């Protein structure tokens, strides 16, 4: 059993605030992803949970016990580092055994645990090699084996896949997910890669500038982003955001109606539309084509509105495609339009219901909104 609760946790370095009143809860057996651009405070948050950074404000508790002042060694956690942090002078076996040497175990017990961990990560045949003789993926597996050999109550992973090449990353992603399900491990996982977040996590907590933006299931975040930051950050490409107004049941963008709406008239709002929800049409939002990217299965048209907002459209490779410099007109599917306040960037209408999947999601949203 392990639950982690962060209550208004802040971290300040001199006069900069790295983490600002972060509240979230990790359930037992949950795979929670902390997602955000570099410098958003996600790694600092993770390091506070690990005990490698002190907490400036707020409380971190594990299984109900406040651990703010508990040294890392007594928190019963394991951490996987981006750089792996393997000991180059020790063999794979010794590396994996390293955390066990601090526990009062007999040699036989240690060997047994090490063998189980090595087998789990398909490392048995490499047990006598030194890290220098391993590939990046193998090193990463050793780092994972070293983390799980101790059967800690919480795993912390700091961008563990970002040093791997794209293909290997895909493989390791699946491996980690399978491992998590098998061990029912509780994992707090930090990444800046939204694809990793979408595919791996049970829930995602999006952070920006030290603040929690939204927390929820990947699909909820994708379909109902709480603000323009989350909208832009999730998805590939991120959501298109353009200035618009609502008038007489129409959504007007770039002076032209692009869809119908049931919402009342409004000015100074932003609308968000995903690239796959835009269609080329004889009229609508006029955009100038900047680049046409053929990805094989689909074509991405990157264009700019007259106001200079970047808009990406996905269409099928069979359709007629424009060339750079052409003017295209875009319309959107009415039910796929997201409305945001132009000033605050917060989502308007159609918010996630209050009784949404996870109660604390809402609670933390409220906390962050009021903060």
């Amino acid at each position: 059993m392990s639950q982690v609760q962060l209550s208004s946790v802040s971290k300040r370095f001199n006069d900069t605030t790295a983490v600002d009143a972060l509240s979230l809860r990790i359930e037992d057996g949950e795979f929670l992803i902390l997602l955000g651009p570099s410098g958003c405070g996600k790694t600092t948050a993770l390091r506070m949970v690990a005990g490698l950074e002190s907490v400036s404000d707020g409380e971190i508790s594990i299984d109900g016990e406040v651990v703010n002042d508990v040294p890392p060694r007594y928190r019963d956690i394991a951490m996987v580092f981006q750089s792996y942090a393997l000991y180059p002078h020790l063999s794979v076996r010794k590396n994996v055994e390293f955390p066990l040497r601090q526990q009062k175990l007999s040699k036989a017990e240690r060997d047994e645990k090490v063998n189980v961990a090595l087998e789990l990560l398909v490392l048995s045949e490499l047990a006598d090699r030194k890290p220098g003789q391993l590939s990046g993926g193998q090193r990463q597996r050793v780092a994972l084996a070293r983390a799980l050999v101790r059967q800690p109550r919480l795993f912390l992973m700091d961008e563990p896949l970002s040093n791997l090449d794209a293909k290997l990353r895909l493989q390791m992603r699946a491996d980690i997910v399978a491992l998590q399900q098998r061990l029912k491990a509780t994992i707090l996982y930090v990444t800046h890669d939204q694809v990793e977040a979408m595919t791996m996590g049970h829930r995602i907590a999006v952070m920006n500038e030290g603040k929690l933006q939204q927390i929820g299931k990947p699909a909820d975040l994708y379909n109902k982003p709480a603000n323009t930051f989350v909208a832009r950050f999730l998805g590939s490409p991120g959501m298109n955001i353009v200035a618009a107004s609502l008038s007489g049941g129409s959504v007007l963008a770039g002076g032209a109606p692009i869809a119908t709406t049931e919402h009342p008239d409004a000015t100074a709002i932003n609308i968000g539309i995903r690239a796959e929800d835009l269609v080329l049409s004889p009229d609508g939002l006029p955009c100038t084509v900047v680049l046409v990217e053929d990805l094989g299965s689909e074509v991405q048209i990157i264009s700019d509105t007259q106001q200079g907002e970047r808009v990406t459209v996905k269409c099928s490779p069979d359709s007629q495609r424009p060339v750079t410099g052409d003017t295209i007109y875009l319309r959107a599917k009415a039910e796929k339009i997201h409305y945001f306040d132009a000033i605050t960037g917060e989502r308007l209408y159609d918010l996630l219901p209050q009784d949404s999947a996870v109660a604390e999601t809402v609670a933390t949203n409220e906390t962050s909104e009021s903060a």
Partner: protein
Amino acid sequence: MASKHVRRARVNKVVRYAVLTVFAIIIVFPLYIVFLDAVLSNSQIATTPPTLFTFHPHWNNFAVAWRVGGVSHYLFNSILQTSIIVMAQLVTSILAAFAFAFLDFPFKRTLFVIMISTLMIPFEVTLVTNVQTVSSLHLFGSTVGLVIPFLATGTGIFLLRQAFMQIPKEMREAAVIDGYSNMQFLRRVAVPLARPGIAALAVFSFLGAWNQYLWPLILTDNNVSIRTLQIGIKSIGGGVDSANVQIAASAIAVFPLLVILIFFQKHLVRSLTAGAVK
């Protein structure tokens, strides 16, 4: 075209080796003379032009130096003081360097600057105060007095701090999370990883301690029994007729250095060029 390049490369190689050979001779020649004179008779040493080879080495010179000249005793003293200094310098340098590299404590920067500044003070400058200190501690003429100023070294601390700072921060954090104390991390990770630097320090410290002259000369002035080999050589015989025995004693003094240099030259070169190339 190609053959021209090949020829030029070959000429370059010949020139390079010729230059290196000349340098090697310049460096090796004095050593050769020491070992040669050590097995000549006194009359052979004094000849002009000097004797450059002999078919009848007087190996007996070594025996005389060893037994009559007291080299065996001096050698023991030298080994003793050198071992103490090397061991002590390794221990103090490792501990201090670890603190400077990994720990946070008040006045860390200030202390580091003070420590570094000791590198710039020649030993001769502190000689008088050192003599006074050692005398007032009643250690003058004792083995403890002989080694006490050299138990810690700024150079060693600096060298090992650099070596420790090469160790990624994450490695220490991983060990911290796994419950390793500073000393355990030092023993299991930091020291093994800094081994090349530590080996280099051991050699430098050995060379320094072994070749000491001024301090032992002053300190053993009133106590022959703790005299080191470097000082002892001077007092063997002392006249022209025992020059060959003195040189034999010098040869004995040089021998350990040669052995160490030959065995550790790779380490030494690596530590001096560390960081120059990845």
